[in-house]
């Protein structure tokens, strides 16, 4: 019986279907992100019990409920902190963090910055719709100047953050941007992000069809330009990535901006994990060690 349980079996799309169907509004960009994540896991054949999907709060943060992996639907803004603890306690797991721009760049901004500099080995997918959806349409940290929302009815007077430049500046070792309307491209970025050893940041334009009437599919389509189509672009060049990240307007780049593999992930840098994942470690500390702890005090 035990052997039957351990036999690896082929992972299919159906295996990743959640217990309930997504309750996002029809046409929401998040459907495309969910499909791309499922497709990426199937293509990489990562057993779903070895994947933990962790989110905060918001429309897109309902994501873990719609996919059949282990999941944690945590507090608003705190997914990255929870995910760091998860990865450090069991680095054998593939950790995906999903959420929105308000969750990640607003209330969770502090954790965003520090998780990047720590180079925690996980893929962070932000479904960036430039608006607060679940609270029915308020300005977010990525809303453009002038955008009218319920919380800024006369137009936003605050500059938005640039998630890509921010990630580059904070030391993220994999930085990419996708578009929910570009499934194949997005799936490819997700696969690369999962395989990257270290912190992978993937900002995804995921239009809110209900509350954001500025940044729609139609608005994005003519503007986006894949970095992969520019054969001269070198994703190992941080300065070039920074320069590209500043482009916004008629041309908006998507794709892999930057990646480096020479920085150890946090769990690789910590010698305590040399003996394997903490979750498998002995509860008891060897007696000679505990005796030395007491001797120090005598």
């Amino acid at each position: 019986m035990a052997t039957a349980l351990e036999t690896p079996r082929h992972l299919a799309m159906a295996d990743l279907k959640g217990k309930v169907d997504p309750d996002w509004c029809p046409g929401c960009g998040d459907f495309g992100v969910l499909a791309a994540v499922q497709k990426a896991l199937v293509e990489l054949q990562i057993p779903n019990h070895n994947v933990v999907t962790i989110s905060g709060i918001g429309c897109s943060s309902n994501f873990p409920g719609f996919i059949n992996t282990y999941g944690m639907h945590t507090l608003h803004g705190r997914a990255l902190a929870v995910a760091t603890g998860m990865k450090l306690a069991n680095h054998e797991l593939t950790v995906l963090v999903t959420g929105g721009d308000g969750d990640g760049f607003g209330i969770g901004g502090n954790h965003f910055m520090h998780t990047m500099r720590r180079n925690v080995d996980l893929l962070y997918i932000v479904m960036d719709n430039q608006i607060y959806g679940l609270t029915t349409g308020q300005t977010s940290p990525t809303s453009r100047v002038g955008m009218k929302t319920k919380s800024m009815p006369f137009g936003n007077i605050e500059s938005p953050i640039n998630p890509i430049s921010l990630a580059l500046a904070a030391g993220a070792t994999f930085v990419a941007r996708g578009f929910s309307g570009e499934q194949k491209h997005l799936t490819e970025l997700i696969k690369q992000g999962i395989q990257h050893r270290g912190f992978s940041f993937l900002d995804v334009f995921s239009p809110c069809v209900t509350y954001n009437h500025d940044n729609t599919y139609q608005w994005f389509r003519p503007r986006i330009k894949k970095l992969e189509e520019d054969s001269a672009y070198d994703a190992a060049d941080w300065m070039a990535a920074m320069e590209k990240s500043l482009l916004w307007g008629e041309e908006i780049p998507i794709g892999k901006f930057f990646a480096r593999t020479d920085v150890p992930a946090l769990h690789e840098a910590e010698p305590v994990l040399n003996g394997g994942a903490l979750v498998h470690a002995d509860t008891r500390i060897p007696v000679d060690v505990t005796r030395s702890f007491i001797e120090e005090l005598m």
Partner: protein
Amino acid sequence: MRQTLAIAIGGAAGQGVATPGDIFAKIFSRRGLHLNAYNAYQSIIRGGHTFLTIRTGPEKVTNMGDRLDLMIPLNQDSMDRHLRLLTSGAACVYNADTIKPGVAAKGVQLCPLPVSKLADISRNKVAQNTLAVGAALSMMGIGFQALEEVLTEQFKKKGEAVVSENVGIARAGYDYAGANFKPFAWPLPMTGNRYAVLSGNIAMAMGGAAAGVKFYCAYPMSPSTGVLHWMASHARKAGIMVRQVEDEIGVVNMAIGAAHAGVRSMCATSGGGFALMTEGLGLSAMMETPVVVIDCQRAGPSTGVPTKTEQGDLWQMLGAAFGDYPRAIAAPLDIGDCFKIIPEMFNIADRFQCPGIVLCDLLLSEGRLSVDPKDLDFAPVIDRGELITKASAASGANGNGEYLRYKITDSGISPRAVPGVPGYTHTAASDEHEENGVLISDEFTNPTKRRAMMEKRMRKVAGIEAVVPPPVLWGPRDADVTLIGWGSTKGVIEEACEILNEQGISANQLQIRWLMPLHGDVIFDILKNARHTIIVENNYSGQFARYLRSETSFVPDGYIRKYDGEPFMPHHIVEAVKEQLAGNSKLSVPAHEIMV
């Protein structure tokens, strides 16, 4: 009365108050003597005023006591502030070159050391400290050998020359005192015991290691930082992942993430940091992921007095996070208990899959106590509760159908599968959910299911109560006065009771360790027949008194409170009890006589 000797060392921060303190502590504990040390200090790295009290004796020493036998002022300020505290039989050893004594009470021996004659002060900046330690040990009747041994250990890294220089200076002080100062009437005895000397913070950190903690994270905050320091410096030997996090919100959530992966996970902070953690406490309760949080109380509100003690966070713990949820809260009674309480709390948190709070305070966190090494048990009972860490053919998707992470059970406890185990995939959520983890907060709200889940979680409260022992009354049954305290006041109340009994007022003590569950019925039964009840606590509003009243309707006859940042001394309680028994007051707020 217990025979003790108390030494105080006063000086500016950075003047080296700690080193002579450590030397005395080592010598006393190796002599088989108990000791208690308390350092009154300020939130300053250099300067200010620091006043370290070390009290020692052959029996257990549980608090700083009422009397100083020996004072070593390292600067004029310390002399000016504290000479008045010394009474007949006490002595004051000081540097005669730089410090002028004031007027001492009758019977106080002033012991000036001609420091520049006894040591080359151009070479050794702390010569006055070493001379004073030597002189003090001579007056206590302790052979020089003990000091030589400790100094040799302390300076051996710096080489033979430094060792012999310091031993020489100490010897000069020792001999000078032998020739010029009167020894104490009570030479310090020696016993066959040997004790470890440790702070509450070290005790809690080691208690965590003993409990099998594999993940510890924190943001530095006085007076909890000592836990982080022990954890960080012993992490690699103990196999514990220790992280310093960007803020306490990150701390508690990171700890929960690690706990959810299946390891025991702990964090410590003080009131301000705890305030940031409270939403996370609710998350732990809702996802049923056990985590243990230590709160080392300091004087609040807000930043308050970072280096001073208080028992002012009780209601914050009782009310931490919104909504109703099961939680366990316990306050360690002394520094030895700081060690023991951690594995106990983890067993409860793990079994009942809920947050556990250890409510410590600066007095214990940063105080130091001699503890019998046998009481530092690194192999305590470990009960991880109903944890699924391996695939099974009998349950989960491989067995009889869907795995229900939040299965409704009589105990309220649902078997918990950790990520990585095939056949048990599920999502744990901070939103309300049904048995299989699916949210019932958004699309599928359902009053019946919501009620069932609330009741499931809250059933754990009765389970916790059944495994936590109720408090017991210490001392004579039918006493004139019953003193009720909680947590760190155990030792000082105990000594106050002893003094009262010696003075013909019979006193007993009810000390509360488990605050949640409280066992209110047991407490009420004990107190309802008591002759005169007084609640003693280190805060302004009587937080425990209000809690006890809310849980049991019990109202005591009086209250003794202190909220000046400093701990109780036994005489504070003794005098207040007498005042209250005479009918002069129902609320006593003793004044702290030591200006620190």
